[in-house]
């Protein structure tokens, strides 16, 4: 996967670090951003081959950023994996699952995310 660029956007810096280590060990080049607005800026600077996007973030959440990217003709074809806390182990969340389904993201991975699942999902979308 040499030369393929994955951008990770999550407000949990340790998760970003973990996922980056995971993807770098598989040969991906990795960019990091820590909220939706930083993510947007990073995409303007360099278009990712895959975007790994957290949902719950300050300033601009993942659903908002995903919708904006998918409605822009220049960015609509960037594959997006949403990391969502809506899952079996997370019965309470302030974010709506229905809103997530409407974002047209290519994939959803529930948190707590499984490392191997995430790497497989990224590889599938490239």
């Amino acid at each position: 996967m040499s030369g393929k660029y994955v951008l990770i956007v999550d407000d949990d810096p340790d998760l970003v670090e973990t996922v980056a280590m995971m993807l770098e060990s598989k040969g991906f080049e990795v960019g990091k951003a820590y909220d939706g607005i930083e993510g947007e800026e990073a995409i303007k600077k360099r278009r990712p081959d895959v975007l790994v996007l957290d949902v719950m973030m300050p300033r601009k959440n993942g659903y908002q950023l995903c919708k904006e990217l998918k409605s822009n003709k220049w960015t609509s074809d960037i594959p997006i994996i949403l990391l969502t806390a809506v899952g079996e182990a997370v019965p309470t969340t302030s974010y709506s699952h229905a809103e997530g389904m409407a974002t047209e993201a290519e994939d959803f991975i529930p948190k707590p995310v499984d490392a191997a699942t995430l790497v497989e999902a990224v590889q599938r979308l490239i």
Partner: protein
Amino acid sequence: MASFPQDESRLAERVCAPLALNRINLSFFAHVAGDREVLCMARPSGEAAFTLLRTRAEAEAAVHLQPGTAILSIYPHDKRPEIMGNFIRSLAQARVIIHGLASSPAAISAVLSSKRAKIAVRRLFENFHFPAFPSPEEFFAAQSPPEELVRKVVATYQEKVIKVYWIVPQPDLDLWGMSVSSTDILAGFADALLELGDLGWQIPFLVAIPGLGNREFLLSFSTAAGSREERGSEIRRILKKHLPDLRPMRLTPVAGIFLHGPHFGDRYGIAQILTEALEKAHVSLLALSCTISSISLIIRQQELAAAQLILTNTFAAPVVAPVVGSRT
């Protein structure tokens, strides 16, 4: 802050269990064996935690509540000592009293008085560039009021077995310990870190807690670079250059274990499960830091296999290949 100097092997029972039973989240947790713990929790829980720990404390123990504190973190540090050094130097320049320091794989955090937090942030803006915030004012404007952060429940987890993203062992580390008695000396330590950064070395772990009586600051950090002999002589040289009066102690070989999230600081009970598991496996914790969403442990190298086994049996987590080497 809690200190149980006569009974350090009962961290789980004395400190972590009562907090977990009462569903108190630990936003920050720093521990150095033989000394005290620094624990931070959101304001409504502080009094309750203090009462719980004091109730369990015996005569020789000391429990102290420091109200009005804030946690200040910067990230990513990429284990680069120069970033940690600049962070510590900024705090020393701001003349803040640091109640605790702890690193996570991505971040370094300090506990300080809320009243001094803005001054410290201004100093950080003088020493760092933050792409998300062009100025301290924009940073302050973007912060939610602390009360709102405490009230807001973003998500809750109900796992039968706590899931961990990764358990990352790092087998060949040193652990350095020293006592620092003033912010001037702390600034000297920051300079030593900057020089280590020039060498391209890494600091995978750093923790600091106030000593008994608050007269000094106990600082522990781990290094990973080159051979053990090279590390020993080079670090002694650098520390002596910047801190000639200090007597640093080195413990080697030690190992690190890094458990990554999710939301460890926002979920009660994880520290208790972890410390209880290690105590059952007779693994002694030399130092521990819990901040952001990770827990970092330093143990004796010969206890690494036992620690990994008990942790993989306790948490649902993949174990990755050991982290070896450094940028040098």
